[in-house]
Structures are given as C-alpha cells and as structure tokens.
C-alpha cells in the first residue's frame, strides 16, 4: 500500500496528492509517469509525475476527474492509501541528460494547458535548480481552472498566464501568447508543450512555422505501461512508437495528432454513452472519458 500524505482539490475537478512511494521518488526524473490503482479492483491509471522529494520518499500527482476511475480516486483523503503505485515509467525529458553548459545557452519555452501544467512544473523546477530560467506560458479555459500558478511563478523565468475567456491574465489561446512573445522579439531554441491533444497539435503547427523545435508529452490509452500491451502506440515520423517506453515525450513536429486523437476515442463508444445516460441521467455533461463529451 502507498500512503497518501496530502490530498487537496486544486480547483473544481482537479486534485493534488502527495504519495509515499520510496522507489519511485528515488528513481524518477521530470517527464516520467506513474501508474496508480486505487483498490484491488481498480483500473490502472497513468499519470505524469508533478513533483517528487527524494529525501522524504514522496511523489506528487495531479489529476482531473475524467471518468469513474479518477472520480473514485478523488474521494481519497490524507491517511488513505493507494493499492498500487508503480514507476517511474517512460523516459525522462531529454534535457535531463543533456550537457549542462550547452543547455544553459538555450532559450526554452514551456507551454502548459489545463491539467498539463502539472507535468510541466517538475521540468521547469529541475531547470531552475540547475540555474536555468525558462519562460512559461500557462493556459486555462477560465480563471477557476488555473492550477499551480504560485508554484510555477517561483521557478519560471517569466510566467505568462492566459485564459481562453479572458477571465484572468492574458486573453486567448496559448498559441496567441506564443505569437505575441515572438512578435515582441523573443527567440526560443526549443519549446515543450504539454496539455490537451488538440492544444499540442496547434502549438506544433505554429512552432513549425516559427521554426522552433517542439517536444510534446502524450498520454494515450495504456494498460501496463511497460511496453507489453501496445495500446499506446502512436505514429511519429511515419514510425510506430509505444508512448509508454519510447515516450511519453516525442518530437511534436513528427507526431500524427489526428491519429492519436482518434485512438483516444476507442472506449468512448455509443454503448458507453447509453450506459452513462442511464446511470447519471441529465446530470452527466461529458468529460468522463467514455461518453465522447467534451473534456
């Protein structure tokens, strides 16, 4: 069992938990993920690592309620425990292994969307600890869905917050902010974009035009997370890759996003819609990961 030391709701439907997982905390790096199971009958849910403390042996995860599994998880409190917590899975972010002197010469831009802010945070923090201050754009649909703003501010070089509806910070999509920054004369050697698939697709479209190499982190359907099931296969540069072992980070300019988005629909079936309608009636408004409604 893996004890939950802290559990809080960051904003509506987004939760943060600090979990005791000594082996993961000792071995993990930014960019990697874990798989968690709430109890002995739960499904395996992959989540990108948001933070870790090697001394305390803890790992922080952030998740949004997108289905029954995450809904069940959200009821856990400090003092409860996860039945399973395994990792770290996937490869660390590439810069972790890069020559530090070379890395310090680079201007790095992070683009975080929604709950994707959580996996961006440890990367920016890691760079900050090496004395590198990266620019960070955080986008959210609306002010109430913004997470980890203070934490990000503490480790980012410049932080640009934007909301789709203009309720906080700048107004508009993250791509607008990227365009604004570049128009203001900023130059970037590399961009890391993590958020909803559709956001990453459009960021990549833009950065390709701007000629900024871009890394994205994919979170496709997976079961085991160790390369065994092949559910997470994605096409990158015409080659089939498994996100769990070859990724989760890939060259965004080579990812076939349309295929990846289509594959996310596999279990969002008509049957699922019917089931949820029967179960939840009019109270269900999508976002469950099964009904095909908007997240």
């Amino acid at each position: 069992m893996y004890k939950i030391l802290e559990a809080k709701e960051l904003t509506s439907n987004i939760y943060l938990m600090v979990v005791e997982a000594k082996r993961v905390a000792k071995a993990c790096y930014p960019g990697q993920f874990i798989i968690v199971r709430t109890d002995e009958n739960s499904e395996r849910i992959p989540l990108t690592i948001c933070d870790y403390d090697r001394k305390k042996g803890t790992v922080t995860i952030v998740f949004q309620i997108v289905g029954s599994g995450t809904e069940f998880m959200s009821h856990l409190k400090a003092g409860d425990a996860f039945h399973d917590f395994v990792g770290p899975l996937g490869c660390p972010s590439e810069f972790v292994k890069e020559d530090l002197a070379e890395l310090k010469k680079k201007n790095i831009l992070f683009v975080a969307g929604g709950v994707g802010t959580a996996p961006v945070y440890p990367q920016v923090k890691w760079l900050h600890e090496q004395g590198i201050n990266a620019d960070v754009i955080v986008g959210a649909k609306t002010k109430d869905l913004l997470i980890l703003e203070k934490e990000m501010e503490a480790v980012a070089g410049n932080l640009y917050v934007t909301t789709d509806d203009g309720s906080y910070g700048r107004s508009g999509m993250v791509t607008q902010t990227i365009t604004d920054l570049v128009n203001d004369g900023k130059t970037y050697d590399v961009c890391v974009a993590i958020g909803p698939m559709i956001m990453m697709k459009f960021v990549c479209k833009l950065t390709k035009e701007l000629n900024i190499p871009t890394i994205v982190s994919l979170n496709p359907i997976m079961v085991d997370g160790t390369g065994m099931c092949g559910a997470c296969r994605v096409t990158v540069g015409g080659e089939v890759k498994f996100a769990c072992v070859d990724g989760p980070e890939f060259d965004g300019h080579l990812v076939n996003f349309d295929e990846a988005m289509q594959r996310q629909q596999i279990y969002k079936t008509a049957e699922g819609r019917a089931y949820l309608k029967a179960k939840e009636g009019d109270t269900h408004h999508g976002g469950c990961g099964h009904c095909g409604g908007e997240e």
Partner: protein
Amino acid sequence: MDVLKKVPVREQDAKERATNFEEVCLGYNKEEAMEEAARCINCKNAQCVKGCPVSINIPGFIEKVKEGDMESAYQIISESSALPAVCGRVCPQESQCEGKCIRGIKGEAISIGKLERFVADWASENNIKPQGAEEKNGKKVAVIGSGPAGLTCAGDLAKLGYDVTIFEALHEAGGVLVYGIPEFRLPKTKVVAKEIENVKSLGVKIETNVIVGKSVTIDELMDEEGFDAVFIGSGAGLPKFMGIPGEQANGVFSANEYLTRSNLMKAFDENSTTPIMRGKKVAVVGGGNVAMDAARTALRLGAEVHIVYRRSEEELPARVEEVHHAKEEGIIFDLLTNPVEILTDDQGWVNGIKCIKMELGEPDASGRRRPVEVPGSEFVIEVDTVIMSLGTSPNPLISSTTEGLEVNKWKCIVADEKFGKTTKEGVYAGGDAVTGAATVILAMGAGRAGARGIDEYLKNK
C-alpha cells in the same frame, strides 16, 4: 477397460462453455486417475522423463497414484516442479512427456498431464504444501519477474535455503499465468494464486509494482540492496505487429492488450472498471496458443471469431487440445490466408480485413513449407475487431539499463542453457527473456537451470 485408450476426461459442454469463462476441462476424479495410472507400464528406461523439460519422475509419481497415495505422488512431483497444477493444464504434453510414452506406440499415451493436474489439485484441496528448506544459508537472491521461470527459480532456491525476493512489474504476481492465459484454461484464484502461495510458503517474498530497469537497476539491487545474485525471468512482453496499412485503426489490438484486459484486469466481467472491446465479428491473426486464447476469449464475449493463419492446419503452432477445443466451440479457421490490409470506415474504425489466399511452397528454414501468395486471390472478411497475435519479443527495459549484460540481435539476453549464466557476473537468466516467446514449461526448465547455476556460483563464492 481398454488399456490402449486413455480414460476420457470430463469437459464442460462446448455450447455451454462458449458463453462462460469457467474452466473447460474438468479433470479426473480419484477413481479415474487411479484407473488411468494403472495403464502405465512403469518402463525401466522411462522415455517420458526425457521428454519433460524439468525431468519430473513421472513413473514414480504415477506409481503412487496407482496405489492411491496422492500425498507421496505430490511430493515426488514437487521435487522437480513448483507449478504442477499449472503444468498439468498448459504443457504441450503431446510433444513432450506423452509424445515419448511407450504406451503411445501402440494405442494412446498415458494422460500424464491430466494425472499431474489431478495430483496437484488433490494436494491443494487437502492443503498439502511442498517441503521447504530446513536451514537458511543467509544469502540473498533477487528474481526478476514472477512468471513460470521466476517462480520456479525462486522456489528451487528457497528449498536450498536462499533468502529469495521476487520483483514483479505488475500489481499481481504470476506473469503470463495471470495476464496471458485465460481463466477458462487456467483458473486464477483456484489454481494460479494457490501455486504462488505454495512458492511463498517456501519463504519466497514477492514485491509487486517494481519495474527492474526503471524503479531500480540490477546494479543497485546488488550494490545497494545486498543481493548476492540475480535471476532475470522477465519474459518476452513486447507485442509484434504486421506493419500492414490500417494497423493503427480503432479496433486493432495486440493479443497481449486484449488478453491483459480480460485476464489481469477482469474486463470479461461486466463489473470490471477496465473496458474491453466486445466486437461482433473478430479476426484473430496468428495460429499459436495465444491466438487460440484470444479467439476463445472473443467468442465468450459474444463475437463470431475467425482465426486467420497463413499456413495450413498441420503447421498451427498451438497445442492440439487448444485447436480441438476452439473448433468445438465454433471458432472459424481461415487457413492459408494472410492479411494484407485493415480496412476502416470514415471515423477510423475497423470494418474489414483484406486477405490474400496462400499455398504451401518449399520448406523454409524452420522446416515448415513456406506459404506463398496466390496472385489475384484477395478477398475481404467483414470484421469490427482485429487481434494481432504474431508473437512477442523481449522487453529491453532490463538489458538497456544493465551494463555488461549481452543481448543477441533479437534483443534476447545471452545465457547458457545449462546454468542460465549471462555475461555479467552473478546474473543469471532464463525463460522467454532468453529464448523469445516459448512455453510455460520451457521457462520453468530454464528457471531450474538458473537456480542450479546460482547455487553453484554462490556455494563457491
């Protein structure tokens, strides 16, 4: 009684079992087992033992069954096998022990597998445990993977007095016995969990949720956690795909994914939180045991199922019993047929599989006649689900993070057959991680060899 014929084994009716996940074969009862055992002529130079990868004293245990002394029969099997209830169910006996049986020359071979199964089940029902070591020797061994190779190696070493810890990547111990082989062939609670309990009763510890190569490396296990030797039995987990157009479509799964969802995650049960695609018409590509398992699972989930295999029936690599059961249950065999493309609708979902007819040509390197395409014979089978069962290859997670551990061009770990010794000192390996995908019993044989190798190494250290 006709001594030339096997005592028939009771099975669930084919029509009935096609709709449930209960075990197909019901096994012998005591009377039937004793009657079958009486057919054994107790050869002096027993060929069956030579056919067994773990060299069970087969005439010895059958002799005890004849006498009705099941406890002694169990202890004889336990000397050589840690998982008799599993092997009695899933070993390809026809090409091993039973294939060499002298009785089989004129008439039918002794049902060695069914007798082994009976003895193991009897022991489990009567709470008989294998005998452990009398004294611990204080040396620590790490075993990576809790599948057949790992469990066997761990069990053997524990019997020799070693302090053994198994590290398992998934949340449940058992490896392929749990995620790969379906409930209707190998019951999880009644059989697999009990065999694992038996291994634990020998003093073996199992730590789940540890991915060696990710959570911890082999060097860390040896340098920081005090393990004197390591056995790698991590299996061959990576699924192969064909590389044909349409393979990324929604509704194309690896057999590994399909079976893991159903077996490990219990998705066959409506109450499971893990979803599985319940197709109406399913094509399973491949002809091995895994293909049969996937096909029979899809059938039980309500589909019409086609096995698409490019060679003829004779070359099907699956156990004869599995093919026989699959046919009885209504699986359709499209033999000498090879997929060339997976067809999709405008939403990216599978709606057909385009195949080409094959004919057998000259024998290839494997000695089997090579299938060649019949020009212009393409046709489409309408399906909504395609399951690729083309074999698996070893996972590079361990080999890529362990310095000094040599792999061959197929990414299989290089290890000698007799002792499982790898190119890294103190590190032994066996099972699918070394050979590529094979059988449960061959992995167990390799687990035994690894245990012998580790014992030799640590005794002299």
